[in-house]
């Protein structure tokens, strides 16, 4: 491996820049995005010290460190704290951190060698500079002269686009001289603190020079300097890195597991570095373990790393009461929950199984997990039986076994959970299970569910604070209950729980919904349903009006649209009665308009025109404008916002509608063509006839766009363009010829 490798590597043992200048900490509020597909929060029972290793499907780690790459600044705080203590300086003395983390090698050299008077004024005022004669402070600066010179080995690149041609940064004469000087310092000193720091510098220098033999030799020779401190564990970590480079994986991984077990600050990097290669080296690591606890540590890492089922079984065999099992149990459940029944199915697809379990998980995986947990739960000898019962109950639930789930949840309820979230987690799983068993949705079941659903509703407001993974579970419950009402034929309740645009196809159903919303006599259960329904009565009126308008029931449409408050009325962006030879919505929207139509104005105007047509008044013009109005309301026209609403959505194109009925409405050219035909009959001259004939061709062209053709390969739409030939003597014909490319092509071909 090369230096370059470490530049990008998160294996921070190698890249720990003791004196790194920059802190790059990708810290911040982190929100798990798993709550849509997971209903099981590891925080409800597993200790917070293992948070980064909770299951996270998209990042290397869970939580605030989900993609932290702070390899160089990881230990800065500890380093500064150690020296503050050693130098007996208060935390307020920021100069210690400054010299350690920021100051250049040259500056340290000046402070170490020059008289105070020759130093910059800003330095002269510092306590450490003024007291350089103090033995410890003098040792501090002397040590720093070496450490800073060592730094280029370990530091990551400032310039990503640089290229170091020599991968093996070999020790040059000056480096060897420096190591010799440091070794001499070690011989002179009896100060354990200093000795350990020189030890660290030398081991690390050898490591980065890729002289792994020397690194390990020096490490072994001075092992007596190691203690239980975090700092000492960093020295050992370099030795593990060197062993790894020498392909002595068994010992390397053993050391990583020890560091993981002993130093929470090192867990992230130890876990990331732990990497058995072959069965033989893995067995060797296990054989190196001297106690059961060490073996547990090894299996814990292996479990996080790859096989939590096997690790749980092994740890349980060594010590059933081990608290290390908690983390692995949470991973076992979360990974099972995330396993998919079908290859390549995404989370959304998996959540679609409405009747039955929460998500469709992999059956083999689920069966294996249940079998393992049954065995452990029955023995009653773990340190937190609450978690095991709850987890097993949830797995039964995922299997669709509500009775099995209830038994386990009841058993869990007998214990007081160690984490405060535990109670809520169990409560939520019980609600899911209750929903699963409420098949008939009779009054009794509704009453039993009501307080639980209200609990979900109230908790959904503060899940971010509690980490309870509620949102996916809540949507699942609503979807499930909706489906059950649908099967009972109660489409109103089904719609209240889970919205489906097709509900509004039917005018009567929509009216029923509006009445329900406006009713003053709802039961508490009905009031709950109304509170989760996302639309208002006027939202429903708007969609009713849209359907009535497209169905050419204009008086009804006007009445319904009148129910929509003025503030919610949409102003149409262009003149909805215009129709061009070549459609240009942007031009229509930009064109100056004397009258701006709201949807209600538009419908009233249409109603007026329709009355004129029926009365035989100026039929040509009224029918033409009505035809244009229907044209523009459709997806091909300039007034698409006519059919946008809270319920239909901000949708422009037909394919985005989740309803065949609505797709059909906005694609249809039928009403437009109907009125244009009336206009054609009433036309007084060839100019008028040419125009209507062409506008009818546009409707046909749109139908061709909608339905496609057998081959789909025509260069121009196969519609009767020839019908325009009869009007070749008109001005309108000439305009079409010059503006409509399809028609021009058609004419050219015929010649």
């Amino acid at each position, binding site marked *: 491996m*090369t230096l*370059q*490798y470490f530049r*990008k590597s998160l294996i921070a043992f190698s890249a720990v820049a003791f004196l790194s200048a920059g802190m*790059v900490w*990708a810290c911040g509020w982190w929100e798990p995005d798993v709550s849509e597909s997971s209903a099981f929060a590891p925080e409800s029972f597993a200790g917070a010290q293992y948070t980064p290793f909770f299951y996270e499907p998209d990042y290397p780690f869970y939580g605030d460190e989900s*993609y932290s*790459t702070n390899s160089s600044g990881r230990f800065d705080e500890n380093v500064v704290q150690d020296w503050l203590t050693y130098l007996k300086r208060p935390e307020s003395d920021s100069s210690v951190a400054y010299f350690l983390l920021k100051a250049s090698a040259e500056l340290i050299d000046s402070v170490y060698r020059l008289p105070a008077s020759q130093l910059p004024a800003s330095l002269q005022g510092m306590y450490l500079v003024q007291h350089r004669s103090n033995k410890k402070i003098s040792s501090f600066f002397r040590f720093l002269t070496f450490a800073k010179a060592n730094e280029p080995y370990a530091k990551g690149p400032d310039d*990503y*686009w640089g*290229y170091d*041609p020599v*991968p*093996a940064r070999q020790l040059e004469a000056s480096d060897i001289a420096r190591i010799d000087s440091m070794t001499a310092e070690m011989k002179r000193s009896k100060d354990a603190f200093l000795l350990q720091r020189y030890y660290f510098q030398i081991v690390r220098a050898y490591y980065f020079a890729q002289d792994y033999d020397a690194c390990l030799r020096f490490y072994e020779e001075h092992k007596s300097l190691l203690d239980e401190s975090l700092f000492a564990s960093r020295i050992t970590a370099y030795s593990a890195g060197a062993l790894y480079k020498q392909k002595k994986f068994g010992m390397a991984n053993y050391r990583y597991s020890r560091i993981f077990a002993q130093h929470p600050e090192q867990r992230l990097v130890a876990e990331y570095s732990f*990497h*058995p*290669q*072959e*069965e033989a*080296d*893995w067995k060797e690591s296990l054989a190196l373990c001297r106690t059961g606890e060490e073996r547990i540590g090894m299996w814990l890492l292996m479990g996080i*790393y*790859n*096989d939590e089922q*096997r690790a749980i079984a092994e740890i349980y065999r060594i010590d059933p009461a081990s608290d290390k099992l908690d983390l692995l149990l949470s991973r076992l459940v979360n990974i099972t929950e995330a*396993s*998919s*029944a*079908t*290859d*390549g199915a995404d989370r959304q697809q998996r959540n679609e199984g409405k009747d039955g379990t929460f998500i469709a998980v*992999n059956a*083999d*995986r689920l069966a*294996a997990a249940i079998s393992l947990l049954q065995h452990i739960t029955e023995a009653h000898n773990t340190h937190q039986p609450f978690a095991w019962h709850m987890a097993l109950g949830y797995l039964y639930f995922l299997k669709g076994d509500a009775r099995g789930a209830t038994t386990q949840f009841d058993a869990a309820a007998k214990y007081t959970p160690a984490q405060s979230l535990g109670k809520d987690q169990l409560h939520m799983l019980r609600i899911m299970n209750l929903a699963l068993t409420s098949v008939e949705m009779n009054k009794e079941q509704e009453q039993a569910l009501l307080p639980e659903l209200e609990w979900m509703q109230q908790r959904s407001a503060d899940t971010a604070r509690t980490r309870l993974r509620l949102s996916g579970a809540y949507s699942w419950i609503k979807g499930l209950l909706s489906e059950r009402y649908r099967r009972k034929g109660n489409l109103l309740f089904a719609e209240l729980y889970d919205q489906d645009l097709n509900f509004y196809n039917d005018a009567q159903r929509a009216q029923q919904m509006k009445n329900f919303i406006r009713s003053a006599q709802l039961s508490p259960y009905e009031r709950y349903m109304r509170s989760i329904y996302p639309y208002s009565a006027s939202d429903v009126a708007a969609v009713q009006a849209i359907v009535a308008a497209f169905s050419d029931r204009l008086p009804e449409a006007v009445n319904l649209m009148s129910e929509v408050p003025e503030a919610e009325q949409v102003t149409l962006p262009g003149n909805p009665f215009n129709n061009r030879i070549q459609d240009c919505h942007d031009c229509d929207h930009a064109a100056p308009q004397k009258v701006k139509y709201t949807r209600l104005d538009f419908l009233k105007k249409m109603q007026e025109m329709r009355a004129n047509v029926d009365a035989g008044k100026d039929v040509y013009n009224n029918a033409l404008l009505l035809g244009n109005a229907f044209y523009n309301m459709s997806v091909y026209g300039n007034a698409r916002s006519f059919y946008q609403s809270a319920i239909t959505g901000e949708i422009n194109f037909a394919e985005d509608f989740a309803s065949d009925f609505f797709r059909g409405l906005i694609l249809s050219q039928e009403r437009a063509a109907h009125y244009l035909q009336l206009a054609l009959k009433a036309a007084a001259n060839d100019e008028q006839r040419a125009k209507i004939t062409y506008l009818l061709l546009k409707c046909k062209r749109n139908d061709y766009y909608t339905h496609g053709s057998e081959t789909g390969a025509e260069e121009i739409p196969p519609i009767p363009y020839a019908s325009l030939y009869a009007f070749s003597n008109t001005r309108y014909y000439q305009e079409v010829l010059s503006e409509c490319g399809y028609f021009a092509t058609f004419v050219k071909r015929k010649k």
Partner: protein
Amino acid sequence: MVRFLRNIYQYAVLLLWAPAFVSCHKVQKTPAVSFYYWKTTAHFGREERSALTRNQVSRLYLRLFDIVWNQEKGFAIPDGLLQVQEPLPDSVTLVPVVFIRNEVFRNNPDSAQATHLAAQTSQLIHKMMERFGRHFAQVQFDCDWTAGSGKAYFTFLRAFRRINPSLQLSATIRLHQVKYPAQQGVPPVDTGVLMYYNMGRISNGPSLSVYDRDAALQYLPALSRYPLPLDLALPVFSWGILVRNDQVHALLNKTDERDYADTAYFLQEAPGRYLVKQAHFRKGFYLCRGDRVKLEQISAGMLEEMAGDVHRYYPKTPARIIFYDLDAFNLSRYDTSIFQEIAHRF
């Protein structure tokens, strides 16, 4: 029945045209054999060197680095820079290749940024090639661009050319890019390389992701209309797809049936399909009991089939065939003569 007739019709057309193609190609030169070298540390062992000499390889496509998107920093950085500890083979002309992840341009479609990135890339290529002590006349970029990132990628290519007016530029072209040049755009380079592999989804299904003839045949007819001269890149690598709980879990590189011969650990379910009988570590991967391994290997027969199909549709003989990738493990899986044999199919 209709489908059957259509097939017959297609074959008939092919048969009618075949002699014409053959006669055309008779005057063409056989494509030169080349390789990609795609590692982070250069080491040319005996096998690699002998493959170069045996096939009279005059040009080696050497991956220098990748360009990736650094999410944390919010800018693109080079990654996996090639480390060279020993002299590179001097019998070949080197063509530096840079692989650019699509998200680099997708995340940053700004054209000023693309120009800046071109300058940085150019500097690094020159710096590295200078360190290797090697001249170069061509640079190749490998980026699976999409409609959303194409504009920035092409800006990058144009800027790179402005900085390096004397360099020839080439770019890899995927099959879907050949079929839809209007939507996907055509990169502003001198030549393209048709990447004739990785054409399917990586899955547990019956078809291979590396090579799926049915999928490829849908794209091939578009070749004759593609506006760039195209070299051809063919796969000689193999990998295993590790499937856990019916889902793709990992890709196992440089592996073949020799790794799965141990019946204590594996049960062969079908050719190239293995069931893990006992959990264990192997080559740095952990295989769980019940996992499945699907081997994807390109046989000599498949290479011949590819050459035959491509030959039929290529408007003219490609100037060179570049095999991906030059590596002792890959070489060990074929007869030494395979590369010449494939070239002589044209």
